[in-house]
Every structure is written in C-alpha cells, then in structure tokens.
C-alpha cells in the first residue's frame, strides 16, 4: 500500500534526501510543500501522513487542520503507544501528523527513516557549530593576547597566563572571559577614540 506523505522541511537538501529514500522504498508517494501554504497542500494532496520539521512555526497551523480539511482529526502520530519513539523524534527535531488513521505499523518505518536522517543532519550541524566556536575562540584569544601585549607590555606567555588565571579566579570558561575582555577593551577604545 502506498501512502501519500506530505513533507514540509526548511532544509532543501534534507527534504530531497528523505523524499528520495521514502520513494525508493515503494511504500510512499512523497509530495512537498512550503510551510506557508500547508493548509492548501493538505487540501490538494490529501496526505495520509505529514512529516514536518519542528523548527517551523507553521506547525501550529496543522493543529487546526480540521477547519480546512475534511480529513479526520489530526493527532500527533508519535504519541500513540510508544513514548520512547516519540521522544526520539522530538529530540531529532521532526514530528508527524497522521491524517487518515493509517495503522501505526505502516507509519513506523517511515518515521524511523525520517528520524535517522534528521539525526544525521543534526550531528553534522552540531559538529560544524563546534568547529566554528573553536575557531572563534582561538581568534579571540589571539586578539586578547595582542591587546595585553600592547597595552600592558606583557609577553605572549604572560598574556596567556593572565587570561587563564582570570578564568580560574572567576571559575568561568576561558572562552567567556576572553570574549568579555575583548568586548570591553574595544568598547573602551571606541569611547576614547583611536
């Protein structure tokens, strides 16, 4: 039995990947929509299942789909009988609405694919963010050291130790101390002029 799945995602690439994966399985016909015309898409495509990115505010519109569709009441599928599965979906940032009362066992593998894909994308995102943070931190440390060396005539190792000690004394992260320090110094510089 082929289910019609309406896929609503902010991430083009992820949506395409998931769409392909579900279509290949042969269980599903996948249609895609932008968040803002969701009600129209539900009316037009009469999906059995809506899979939606939880980062979209448009999800609230699905909660009221009864008013735009003759479909049976919307329930969040994930809540049916397995809270663990639902939690996994929410943690991955995806959720689904069952519009046509299709059986859970038919929907489950589809949602499992979606969850896995969202998790993979999230993982990549987290890694990217971590790498970027590390780079920013290094850049800020360099900047803070330069300020200390110039204004307080410290050597580079002295400047670094000074920052470390400040972080330790205030029991805060080095990254926070450095960011704050650079911000303050630059604000002071703006006030006094170049």
């Amino acid at each position, binding site marked *: 039995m082929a289910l019609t799945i309406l896929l609503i995602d902010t991430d083009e690439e992820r949506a395409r990947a998931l769409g392909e994966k579900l279509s290949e399985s042969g269980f599903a016909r996948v249609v895609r929509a932008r968040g*803002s015309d969701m*009600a129209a898409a539900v009316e037009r495509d009469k999906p059995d299942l809506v899979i939606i990115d*939880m980062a*979209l505010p448009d999800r*609230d*519109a699905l*909660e009221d789909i009864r*008013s735009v569709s003759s479909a049976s009441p919307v329930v969040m599928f994930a809540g049916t009988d397995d*809270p663990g599965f639902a939690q996994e979906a929410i943690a991955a940032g995806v959720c689904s609405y069952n519009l046509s009362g299709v059986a859970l066992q038919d929907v489950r593998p589809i949602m499992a694919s979606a969850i896995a894909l969202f998790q993979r994308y999230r993982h990549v995102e987290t890694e990217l963010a971590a790498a970027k943070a590390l780079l920013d931190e290094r850049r800020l440390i360099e900047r803070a050291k330069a300020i200390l060396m110039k204004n307080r005539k410290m050597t580079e190792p002295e400047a670094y130790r000074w920052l470390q000690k400040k972080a330790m004394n205030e029991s805060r992260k080095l990254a926070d101390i450095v960011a704050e320090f650079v911000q303050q110094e630059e604000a002071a510089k703006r006030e006094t002029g170049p």
Partner: protein
Amino acid sequence: MSEVVALKRPRGGTKLRIGFLRLTDSAPAIVAQEFGYFAEEGVDAELLEEPSWANIADKLAYGFLDAAVIVPPLAFAVELGLRGVSQKLIIPCNLSLGGNTITLSRDLAGEVRKLAGSEGISKQRALAACLKGRAEPLPLGIVHAYSTHNLLLRYWLATGGLEAGRDVRLSVVPPARAVEALQSGQIAGFCAGAPWGEIAARAGAGVTLATSDEIWRAAPEKAFAVRARWAEGHPEALKGAIRALVRAAQFCDAPENASYTGALLSRQKYLGVDSHAILSSLPGGAVSQDNLSRFWCGAATFPWRSHALWFLQQMARWDLTGPVDREALAERVYRPDLYRAALAPLGLNVPLSDAKAEGAHDAPWQLDAAPGPIAMGPDSFCDGAVFDPIPTPASF
C-alpha cells in the same frame, strides 16, 4: 571572599527548563533569568525559545520542558490530551494581562472605522455591516486553535453578531508570517499578541482595529505552566521560581524600566525584533496606552480560578473540549494555594479569595487582600457581561 559569595549563591540549583515564544509577554521569564532572580532562589533555569505553540505543548507532554510561558487554553488542551499525548500541568502563577490586537488590512480597517464613527455603532457591528453581502467568509488568522486569541476574537465577533465558520473563516497563521499573509491577501486580518500587531502596522500591512482591553479589560493572557510531576518533586524550587517571576513582573510593570526591558527583549536570542515595536506595548514605553501588557499591578500574577473557568466555558462554547468537569479541572490546574505559599515570606499583598466576579467593574476598585487591599483596574467585557462562577458571600 569568593567562598562567601559561593555559599550565598549556590551554583547549579534545581534545574528548570522553561519554554517561551518570541512575544513581549515572555518578559517576566526573560528578566528573571537575565537578572539572576531564578539563581538567587536556587533555581537553575534554562530558557528555550520555541518556534511554535505545538512545540511548547509536545515538549511539555514528553518531558523536554519542565515549564512554559503558555496561553492557558493550551495548558488545558495538554492536560486533557486534546491535541496529542496528555500531561498533567499546573498553573501556580499568571504572567500577564492584555497585549493582544485585532489587526485588519488597511482598507478594511479604514472602512470599519469610518462606518463605526458615522453610524455611532461598535466596531464589531460596523465590521458585520461591512461584511454583509460578501460571497465568501472573511479569512482571519489566529495563532493557535487553543489560544486566548481564538477565544477573545470569537467573543468579540459574536458581540457584533458575527460567527466563525459563517461570516469569517479562522485559520492558524504564525504571527511572524502574518505580515506576509496580510500583504498577499491570504488573510484579511489576525488576532495575535504583542509585538506582532505593531510590527504589521509599522510594515504598513495592517491597522489595529481593537485590543484585548476593548474585548475584556484586564483579560488574562500568559500564564506559567509547570508539569505537575516536576512541581511535586521540587516544591521548594517551585516556590522559588514563582517568587523570581513575581519579582520580574514587578520590574517589567515599572514604567521607568520600559526601555531597559524593551532593549533586553529585542536581543536576537529572545524576540529578535525592533525594540521600538516591543516598547509600544510595555507599561511606560507606550506612546498611547491603547494596548498594554500588564505584569504586576491589579493582581496580574494571581492565578484566578475565575479566569480558568472563563477559559473553559469559552472553550466549551466553541466546541473545543469534550464533556469535562470544568470546576474540578480548574481546581486541579489553577493553584492559588501554591502562589500564596510561595509569596508568604515576601509580605506582599495577596488576594484572599480564589475567584472574582469577572466583568463586574467598569471603574477602578479595591480587592480584599492581605496584609493590605490591592488597587484594581476595570475588568469589564465589551458586551457588559458579568462572569461570576463562584459567587462569594457578601462580606459583613
């Protein structure tokens, strides 16, 4: 020296994850966090910005959030399992009164105002007259099916003889999309919380036709909902969180703090919008007093059972709940007893009764409270109705 500080302000504390939306009346939670009020009460709060009410509801239901700044009808929907899995919630503290606008496209708003002025009739009657003879119901946006906005808008429309489904078609439009939806003609107006009406006005997309106050003066708006299980497991932290929020509410209500609060809320990690749009509905920040969120004065933080029962009555009126024992539900969810217990050490004036006659006052009045009375503002409805669910015996 640093050890003394460490003893006074314990690091960590009880973890409390609070969900909020990008709205002006999330202010008390944001202020309590930024000023360390939660930390001082031994609560290690984490504020999580969510893009939708559905996320707030699901994350409360599945335990990803311990608490949220919520529209009370949604708390009842979660409690009753009306939109997914159910979760027991309590509301030990209200967070704001007023702040919503009914915003219509410029042309329609102009037409309605003109007619209301020339005929000397209410704006809702004028709207009804403008809609007469239309082939299609007027499309209006609300923020969620289980929102204060849906209930207030329907109430207001009904007093003009307008009915959702027949004369207007309500659909859910997230407020951040409302400007675009107004411009494209997808909707002809919407009812949403601040600052979104102001943002639509600034963008030239719409005009505010009415506000919360014109529907129900001192209408309850956002509340602090907590998972009942969390509350039972952390009674002291709960009291601390209520005190922190009440302290923040006092800050947000003080006119001299408006620009500070507006600037804080406008930060990218909170509302991420122009602070002037936020200021326009903050006490002390508004040029006109048309649409104000109120946080403290007039017992704004007190979780009135009569508020709960009004919401439940209106939800039943529009067929949003099944059969339910409203009194029992209101008593289970709204917890003035916990509010009083939390505030006891502060010596602040706290209402003596759990309910009041909603709509009975069209002038300032005094509320019985201890240790001293509380000055209250008018609380009348646009149709003059009085909602008195639990009549109190006349004091002697």
